[in-house]
């Protein structure tokens, strides 16, 4: 079964390898991702700081488009890989189903654009779909290159589990750990895995620029702690977390006087490697400091370690 897919603005920029690897993994598992035509920005975390009703309307338009794309009475899953988009769409879904003044106003705005939200669209995160729809057994069966010896810090960040936890425990989530185990890797125990990386501020590219001091420190703390726990890689479920943790390691090293070096991957890339998918198809050539060996997941120093 194919899923309706909401790319989000990051997929057109820094999050491109996330989209590439997700599409490759879903296809390999027999479920395509059909991108929503005409999708628009969800409002992210920035728009609600200016106008809540408009932020809801922006997200609601995507929910309405997802329903239009699959007419009928069945629920429609809308897969949103960015944790920021995921939360914005989910929040809108809930606000509109609660009814009240905001729901009426947003309904009116949709009508002005010749759209209607029925309430069939359900926001899903691809991690949820992989673990709970496709299932860990099927994924484990498809593994051709178990990631033995790879020690993974599973990073959930903030918005996948807060304020709503739809498919996992809010304080002690386990989906990612179970997924990386299913592909042969070993999750490290990491209590900080739902702590904010500081990058959730706004979908604006080098986010660190908004509050560099705070963001660099929050991210550095996570990277350092994951490394101390013996992780070879941090896997992320959000393009903003991924970029924020990956792109500024040089600055962090410079500032703290201690080298900060850790591969930060999208969770879909790690799964894709275990499924034996081509590194290019997973967008690994686009990563800024990828240090995992290309043939197996077992080594931390590969041919491209110094690239």
């Amino acid at each position, binding site marked *: 079964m194919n899923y309706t897919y909401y790319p989000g603005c990051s997929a057109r920029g820094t999050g491109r390898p996330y989209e590439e690897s997700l599409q490759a993994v879903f296809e390999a598992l027999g479920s395509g991702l059909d991108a929503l035509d005409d999708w628009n920005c969800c409002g992210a975390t920035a728009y609600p700081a200016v106008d809540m009703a408009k932020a809801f309307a922006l997200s609601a338009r995507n929910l309405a488009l997802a329903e239009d794309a699959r007419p009928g009475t069945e629920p429609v899953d809308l897969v949103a890989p960015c944790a920021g988009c995921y939360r914005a769409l989910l929040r809108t879904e809930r606000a509109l189903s609660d009814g009240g003044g905001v729901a009426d106003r947003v309904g009116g705005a949709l009508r002005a654009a010749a*759209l209607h939200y029925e309430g069939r669209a359900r926001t899903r995160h691809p991690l949820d779909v992989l673990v709970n729809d496709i299932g860990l057994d099927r994924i484990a069966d498809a593994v051709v290159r178990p990631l033995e010896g790879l020690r993974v810090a599973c990073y959930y960040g903030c918005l996948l589990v807060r304020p709503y936890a739809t498919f996992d425990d809010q304080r002690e989530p386990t989906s990612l750990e179970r997924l990386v185990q299913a592909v042969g890797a070993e999750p490290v125990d990491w209590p900080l895995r739902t702590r904010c990386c500081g990058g959730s501020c706004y979908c604006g590219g080098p986010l660190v620029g908004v509050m560099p001091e705070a963001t660099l420190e929050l991210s550095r703390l996570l990277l350092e702690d994951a490394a101390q726990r013996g992780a070879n890689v941090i896997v992320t479920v959000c393009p903003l977390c991924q970029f924020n943790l990956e792109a500024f390691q040089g600055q962090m090293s410079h500032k703290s006087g201690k080298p900060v070096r850790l591969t930060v991957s999208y969770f879909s890339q790690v799964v894709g490697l275990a499924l034996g998918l081509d590194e290019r198809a997973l967008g690994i050539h686009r990563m800024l400091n990828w240090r995992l060996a290309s043939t197996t997941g077992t080594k931390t120093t590969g041919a491209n370690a110094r690239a």
Partner: protein
Amino acid sequence: MLPALVESEARDRTGGVGVDLWRDCFQCGTCSAVCPLADYMDRNPRQMIATLRAGREEEILRSCGIWTCTSCYACTVACPKQVPLTDSIYALKREAMRQGVYPRRFPTPVMARQFVRTVDKWGRSTESRISLSFYLRTDPKQLLRHVRLGLRLLQAGRMSLRRESVPEPAQIRKMLEALEMAAGEAA
């Protein structure tokens, strides 16, 4: 007296019940303890509530503290009294914007306004363009610091200066204008 703006947020959230969000707070400070940004705020989340309760709403509306919140919802989830603090801080940001009292030189409101302008116009944001114009407005020196990163991203195909847009931005504008008109009629 409790801030009207916070009460209206409560009404929206509870479908008209009108729960008073701050009343239940007993100042335990859990919010500030779990907030990853508390050290960087001029007032931490617990102090924000205390200040609001003291009837000094304006101090909070003018503060940088509310704009330092990254909306990670750690406080909301941890609060033993279920005070929806993150969404309330959002309400305070909106009120600060509405009254035009937000800190003009603080980067996050600048970024938020710019983000909104871009999305209103094109329906999507373009990371590279937003960053570029943000740095030009706030701290052009930062731009130099990021030249190397920018080039690497261009090379890796993870950044483009091409403007992202929905096929028909007019439809987005129509939708947003309908909300403005509805708000105008209600006022």
